[in-house]
């Protein structure tokens, strides 16, 4: 009745909606737009104000408009280094999350094996775990691993990558299972007829057909890692600090550099906002493919 991954061609109903509906729509959507935009406006306008304006009485329009915070923010705090750290950690976490989730989702989708249901339930239930419960234990485990094997997980990006990729695994697996389920097994079969093993079928046939889902999962994993604060604050040190923790340094002993915080916030948000807006339609498809039962 509708196509995978596409929007239903939006046609107007044969009868035009009544005026009351149109007005309700206008009012509600306008209110929601203002609600959504207000903090965004504050972020942008505050980043353009000099420090004394932004800590003084609030004004709607910045005057004078100055871009100095965009320049100073790189020096007040080693923002570039934090940026690099975050990029490395999040990209690797996203890539690995996709890889691991793809394999797992393929197994769950294509095979019926003992423990399949248990696995799914366990993975879903990890969504309920309060992070604070396993923060210290995770820390202690990383230390033990470090002592036993010599692989340093604490304070290194590896530890954070492992943590973040696991945080996004449940949702990623769930989403990809939905995607894979909607790819007809006939495709797999055709590949087998051609002489591929199931793994090659995975790579040759299934993954290409599920690219939207994979991109979605990658961006979702990236976003989750990009925004995480608690674990980053405990598991990083000077050299590996990520943006989430680093932005706190704008609040120094003397001043809270609000304008720089806002400028840095905007710059830091651009990758994830752009990525999310690009992939949100795939997220929609993935949700329809998977969740509606």
């Amino acid at each position, binding site marked *: 009745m509708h196509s995978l991954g596409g929007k239903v061609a939006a046609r107007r109903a044969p009868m035009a909606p009544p005026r009351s509906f149109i007005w309700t729509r206008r009012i509600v959507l306008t209110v929601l737009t203002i609600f959504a935009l207000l903090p965004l406006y504050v972020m942008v306008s505050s980043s353009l104000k000099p420090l004394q304006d932004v800590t003084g009485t609030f004004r709607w329009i910045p005057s004078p408009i100055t871009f100095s915070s965009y320049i100073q923010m790189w020096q007040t705090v080693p923002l570039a280094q934090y940026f690099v750290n975050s990029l490395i950690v999040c990209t690797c976490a996203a890539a690995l999350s996709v890889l691991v989730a793809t394999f797992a989702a393929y197994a769950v989708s294509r095979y019926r094996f003992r423990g399949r249901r248990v696995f799914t339930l366990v993975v879903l239930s990890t969504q309920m775990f309060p992070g604070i419960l396993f923060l210290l234990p995770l820390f202690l485990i990383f230390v033990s691993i470090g002592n036993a094997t010599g692989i340093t997980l604490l304070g290194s990006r590896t530890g954070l990558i492992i943590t973040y990729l696991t945080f996004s695994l449940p949702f990623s697996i769930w989403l990809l299972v939905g995607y894979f389920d909607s790819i007809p097994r006939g495709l797999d079969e055709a590949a087998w007829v051609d002489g591929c093993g199931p793994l090659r079928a995975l790579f040759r046939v299934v993954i290409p057909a599920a690219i939207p889902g994979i991109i979605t999962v990658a961006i979702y994993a990236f976003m989750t890692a990009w925004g995480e*604060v608690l674990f980053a604050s405990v598991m990083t040190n000077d050299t590996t600090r990520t943006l989430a923790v680093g932005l706190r340094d704008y609040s120094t002993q003397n001043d809270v550099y609000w304008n720089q915080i806002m400028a840095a916030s905007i710059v830091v948000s651009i990758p994830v906002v752009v990525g999310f807006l690009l992939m949100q339609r795939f997220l929609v498809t993935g949700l329809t493919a998977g969740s509606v039962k």
Partner: protein
Amino acid sequence: MAPASTPTPAPVHPARTRARAGGGGHRATARRRGPGRLRRIGLPYLLLLPALLFELLVHLVPMVVGVLISFKALTQLYLTQWVHAPWAGLGNYRIVVDFNGAIGQALLHSFVVTCAFTAIAVSLSWLFGCAAAILAQDSFRGRGLLRAIFLTPYALPAYTSVITWAFMFQYNNGLINYVLHNELGITSSPTFWLLGDNSFIALVTVSVWRNWPFAFLVVMAGLQSIPRELYEAAAIDGAGVRQQIRLITMPSLRPVNQVLVLVLFLWTFNDFTTPYVLFGNGAPPPADVISMHIYDASFLTWNFGEGSAMSVLLLLFLLVVSGGYLLFTSRRRNA
């Protein structure tokens, strides 16, 4: 069609098929060629192995350790040798559920606050999301832009958007007080939003602002699977817009809504980042949600045994609620 030699006792169960076009039609006919039966049996487990290993390492084993810690008296005295910390049996649990004692009372208060917070925030998020998705269903000029605007708050990292709200909620120079007091004159004097009773409202506002786009997205997805013909038929029958929504849209959305509400509930109940960035250390009592409370009770007062006990209780509560919810909704569906 699924590899017949995999360890399945039965062919693919129909209920497992996701209801999509073209799903797994040809099943039983393919015959496996080639050797490697053992490998085939092992393959799904092997594919799962990485995911399982990571989950064990990061989620499950730490969880078990956390549960173990809840049975120990782990304070700063034993922090260096936490394995040797004395066993407290159920002692920690007794303390945290003793509602006559200060700790239990504080926990109960925090629990009530969190329930109220979650109920209100989830309801509002869902309401806004549903309303916006339904109203934005038809295409009109600027719809794409509107959707981008609506979704941006969800995409922003928490520590940027919540800090902006903290900036806006400031007593002295925040935008909220400026608008309410200076411009609109609604309040006679500036109000506190980060302290006192209003801190609850501030927390709900920020949570709804961040989460309703997700509801919007999900409901939008769900709406796409409702056939237009249903609406057209209803319109021809004389049903107004409101009736169409009530009789067609909402029932069709029920499966989507059920999952959505559960997910929103779990995220909101467990949300640590929002109150942490909004209030810093030491949340004001009216907005002392349980995640912050446990953090204060364990990391800031060095009492990890009690903090773990509280976390375990929280987890049990969420498991019970989620389990009950899923049972209830699946029963309704099958009924």
